[in-house]
């Protein structure tokens, strides 16, 4: 139990540290590098969520993971369309490489966990990862973006990542307290239209 807790915390802390280190080493990324970092950061969270959907049976964890797949795929689509419009091709950078390396390590560690230990580690990682993504977007990517539309798109995406952070914190808190965070409200009296 203690060992699992240490493991999951270690994953989250390691993710945070590596992302911070990557930011520190980044030398004012160019617009193509910024797009490359955004694409990679989104794909990493999609991959982690897919792992969670494969391994977890917890309703809240699965709901968070499915949301990450859906939302980050939507962001990827928008980034792809913006890249085409601006004629910007995603470029490699040290930050992107650090992210990929860390994601591989995190995935390996998460894959070794099961049940509640996995759920806790995944939620902690989501909290740490999104906090770092928010910091990176606000402190590195937005200030360095040259193109106004790219800067605006990054600014517009910030509340989405903040929403993910708060949702992940709720799931994490629910797992720690053993209480469900899912709304038990009735859909009675509601009429849905697609």
């Amino acid at each position, binding site marked *: 139990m203690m060992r699992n807790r240490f493991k999951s915390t270690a994953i989250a802390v390691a993710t945070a540290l590596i992302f911070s280190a990557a930011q520190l080493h980044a030398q004012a990324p160019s617009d193509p590098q910024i797009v490359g970092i955004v694409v990679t950061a989104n794909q990493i969270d999609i991959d982690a969520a897919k792992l969670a959907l494969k391994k977890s049976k917890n309703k809240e964890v699965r709901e968070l993971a499915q949301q990450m797949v859906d939302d980050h795929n939507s962001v990827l689509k*928008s980034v792809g369309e913006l890249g085409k419009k601006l004629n910007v091709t995603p470029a490699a950078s040290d930050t992107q490489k650090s992210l990929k390396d860390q994601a591989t390590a995190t995935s390996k560690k998460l894959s070794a966990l099961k049940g509640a230990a996995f759920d806790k580690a995944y939620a902690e990682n989501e909290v740490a990862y999104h906090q770092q993504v928010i910091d990176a977007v606000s402190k590195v990517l937005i200030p360095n973006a040259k193109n106004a539309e790219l800067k605006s798109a990054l600014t517009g995406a910030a*509340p*989405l990542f903040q929403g993910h952070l708060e949702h992940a914190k709720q799931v994490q808190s629910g797992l720690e307290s053993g209480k469900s965070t899912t*709304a038990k409200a009735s859909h009675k*009296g509601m009429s849905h239209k697609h």
Partner: protein
Amino acid sequence: MRSLFSLTTLLSLMLLVACSSSSPQPAKTDQPAAPSSAASSPVSGPTTHVVTIKDMKFSPESFTIHEGDTIEWKNADDVAHNAVANDKTFATQKLKPGDSEKWVANKKGSFPYVCTFHPNMKATVDVQ
């Protein structure tokens, strides 16, 4: 004589057009830009108030309606959202982009609500 007739006809037509353009248009149901004014207007019968979800926000974020009115949440954003009252009085299903859902406000009170997928999205509806 013929020209006098034409002039009279023309003047009559102009008068008709002027009258019809100054006639008030029939009031429509409430739209998101002015939910509070519709709520306070003396129009009888329940009103439907539209809350648009766009750019990670409920719009309007805060407004007042009458008991019996309907709220319709329309998701015009790129990702899925929902609207769940803090006290669970109402809860939409997962609204994918383009989806909408209605709730008939059959209970008075102040109802703060959130998108549970993105808890930083908050709004309040007051039912009088």
